[in-house]
């Protein structure tokens, strides 16, 4: 009996840690979505597509440098920048002309962007499955309670909080971060004191998309990169942002933890219906707290 319990404990803790590392990826993606939601008040439907492009770009960059460790680290730096560049172009050429229009137009535009980016990805990279090797340092696994735990997931557990702290410092300590937060609360006032609102929007949009790209680059060694990952992540991201509290960065963290951990326990308990568990969690949260766990900026 003793042995059985130990195995269960080990399985539980590994499940918990796997869920936690999955939550870190979700957090990085959803914090970007939340940032855009907070400042622009637009659910960016194209966010998932940018995440997918981040993963594909990471694959290409890493392949360009021979697929080794250097390739991976360069991919981690440059893939988000590629995504940021794409979003900057889309924002400055088209999106920025819509800020004065009805709100629904913005939503429709991001949907159009999702359709276009999805097909462009298919044209550029094709419909094959791609995979990336993590660098040698992060390959293999370590032992936790006698069970193997992938080193790469450990790396994710470090990166997630680092991004969270970085974002928090950025939005509370730097001037532009403060402007962005102010814009989230009262856009007209920000404009009234002479700040170029259009560029604040552009900045928030590009930063949000950069985080989507970073999430895509980080997730690429753990899954097979393929067309269609955008559809899955975007719905999860929307739900996470909603249960966390719209526009609240820590809300994105709480939501991601709920989502990631329920998902990985779902795999342990009922593998066939694992994807059902996070949705049930969302239903419970929204039934008990209709506006999300933490305070929304809306």
């Amino acid at each position, binding site marked *: 009996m003793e042995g059985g319990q130990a195995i269960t404990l080990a399985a539980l803790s590994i499940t918990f840690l796997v869920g936690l590392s999955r939550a870190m990826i979700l957090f990085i993606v959803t914090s970007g979505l939340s940032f855009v939601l907070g400042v622009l008040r637009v659910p960016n439907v194209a966010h998932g597509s940018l995440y997918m492009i981040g993963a594909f770009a990471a694959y290409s960059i890493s392949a360009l440098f021979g697929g080794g460790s250097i390739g991976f680290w360069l991919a981690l730096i440059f893939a988000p920048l590629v995504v940021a560049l794409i979003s900057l172009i889309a924002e400055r050429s*088209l999106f920025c002309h819509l800020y004065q*229009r009805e709100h629904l137009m913005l939503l429709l535009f991001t949907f159009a962007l999702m359709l*276009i980016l999805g097909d462009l990805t298919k044209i550029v990279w094709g419909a094959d499955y791609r995979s990336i090797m993590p660098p040698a340092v992060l390959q293999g696994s370590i032992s936790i309670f006698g069970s193997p735990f992938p080193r790469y997931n450990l790396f994710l557990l470090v990166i997630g909080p680092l991004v969270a702290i970085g974002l928090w410092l950025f939005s509370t300590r730097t001037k532009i971060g403060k402007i962005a937060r102010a814009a989230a609360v009262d856009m007209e006032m920000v404009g009234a004191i002479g700040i170029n609102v259009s560029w604040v929007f552009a900045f928030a949009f590009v930063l949000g998309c950069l985080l989507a790209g970073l999430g895509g680059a980080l997730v690429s060694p753990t899954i097979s990169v393929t067309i269609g990952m955008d559809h899955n992540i975007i719905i999860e991201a929307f739900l996470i942002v909603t249960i966390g509290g719209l526009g609240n960065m820590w809300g994105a963290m709480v939501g991601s933890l709920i989502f990631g951990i329920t998902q990985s326990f779902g795999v342990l308990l009922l593998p066939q219906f694992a994807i059902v568990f996070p949705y049930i969690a969302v239903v419970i949260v929204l039934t008990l707290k209709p506006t999300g766990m933490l305070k929304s900026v809306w």
Partner: protein
Amino acid sequence: MFSEMIRQKAFGISVAIFVLLLLAPSFLSRFYIYFLAVIFVTALLAMSLNLCVGHGMLFQFHHGVFYGVGAYTAGLLLAKTSVPWWVSFLAGPCAAALAGLLIGMFCIRLNRLYFGMLQISLGSLIWAIAFRWYDLTGGDDGIHGIPIPDFIASTRSSYYFVLIVLGICLTLLYLILKSPFGSTLQAIRDNPERCAAVGINVRRHQLKAIVIATFFGGVAGVLFVVVEGSIFPDLLFWVLSLEIFIMCLLGGWFTFAGPILGAAVIVSLRTFVGSYTEYWTLILGVILILLIFFLPDGIMGYNYRQLLRFRTK
């Protein structure tokens, strides 16, 4: 009196179109008959959604689920049991309305975007079950070659069946919108606070609208089974829901027949552009952007602007 005349004119036109469509199979090729039937099914789906979105201002983000529930219920009953065909055809819309009632009861307490989000979550739950429950639903493959009753099995007879059901449903939807219930629903859309103040139970009315809309969504699902003879999880996927939402916006969501137009445009694009290139969503995206920039009235309809002016905060 003038509006009465317009209404009569519109009535005349719709009867003329209906007669024309009744005659259509005699001079159209088989492909076009099928193509029209697909438009009819999609049009009914978009019309049912518009009851919520356009006339009730409820952000029904995941309407596709009810379409899928209707299709799956009818399809599974036809394929796996020996109940008479009409039982499965009735069960589809009823199951969809039941799902609409259950999901609606959860969602109705929330506002706008949160309403939509909770609905997406609950809808995704149903999608995930259909997607994973291989033994019952065939999982991601779905079920193909569902036995359709003989009298509507051919392309032409299924066309007539779909057309007649569409005609009945549109008449019913029109009557519902013109009834006191429909007027109340639109009054709630325009000013919920005032409606609550004069003693209307706002939530109850909205819930009724959801149940009615999901019922007709289920009817569209059954018609889909009749036309295609198959069911698959994409029917329940949120991308489809967003597509129907766009049909409503495209045609003009404060008009009665707008969604039909939107459905016809999107289905035509998908069929004809899709036959030339596999990248038809790219073209749809570009068209959408062009519409946003150059033809916003075509998307939203003039009435939306007026409504905005009416309720500017």
